[in-house]
């Protein structure tokens, strides 16, 4: 993997290594990951018990739409990662631009999701129609709620970057950490709902 053999020079010296953002946000990331993992486990178990029915319902999803969702969110994550680096270097204008790009891509994801839901409901696949769609709508909706909270978080980020008196790198990183969390939850949800067979 690309991550481990990074040149030491790119990393901050050991003494100044710091937790990105508030350490407290990481409590949220780890705790909420556990909660999501438990949802995923329940889903996977239900899946194994009714494999054929799940596959039949799953066939109604468009994989390419899921891939598009994922790419959009990954790109937004990339944008917010750049935002953090710009802010750290004091390039607040660029940082703000990237924050807006993040929010914009988040909005694109939101629209894609609503279109996808509308399409499924149009074809008669609702929250109450089959077990698979129960889980599908639950997982996508709870992720959707996290994303909506993410907009508030990005709003805070933009306000922070705007006002020189408020600018705190820690808050910027905290907000970014939240957004990445929403992103990697989607990566997992995507794999579990669209790809798993």
């Amino acid at each position, binding site marked *: 993997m690309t991550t481990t053999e990074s040149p030491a020079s790119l990393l901050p010296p050991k003494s100044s290594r710091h937790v*990105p953002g508030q350490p407290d946000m990481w409590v949220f990331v780890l705790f909420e990951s556990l909660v999501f993992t438990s949802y995923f486990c329940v889903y996977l178990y239900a899946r194994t018990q009714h494999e054929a029915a799940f596959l039949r319902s799953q066939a109604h999803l468009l994989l390419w739409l899921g891939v598009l969702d994922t790419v959009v969110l990954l790109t937004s994550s990339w944008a917010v990662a750049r935002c953090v680096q710009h802010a750290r270097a004091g390039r607040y204008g660029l940082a703000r631009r990237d924050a807006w790009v993040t929010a914009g891509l988040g909005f694109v994801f939101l629209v894609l999701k609503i279109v996808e839901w509308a399409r499924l409901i149009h074809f008669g696949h609702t929250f109450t129609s089959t077990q698979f769609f129960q889980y599908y709508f639950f997982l996508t909706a709870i992720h959707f709620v996290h994303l909506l909270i993410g907009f508030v978080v990005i709003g805070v980020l933009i306000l922070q970057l705007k006002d020189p008196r408020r600018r705190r790198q820690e808050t910027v990183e905290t907000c970014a950490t939240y957004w990445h969390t929403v992103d990697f939850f989607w990566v997992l949800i995507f794999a579990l709902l*669209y790809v798993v067979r």
Partner: protein
Amino acid sequence: MSTFNKRLFAVWLILVGITASYLWIDHSAGQRGVPTASTVITVGAICFALIKVRIIMREFMEVRGAPQLLCRLTDFWVVLMGVAMLGVYFAGKAVA
């Protein structure tokens, strides 16, 4: 100093690449619209997703610059999620 971070771009490319590979997995697995159950694809999809999660944490979330404790903790979490999900999956298979 350039404001364009090549490393982040590379990370993004890798992540998108893995995501796109799902299309190929899907294409090679199904017999034209009739999906069949496949343990290999399930395990593969979960593992790829977890690798992506780890890359996001390491690179985007900047865990690689964080204290050792957080590095280990996040790695442990990724393993924990994987073990939990795959464990439940195989347990479910055994029961079904």
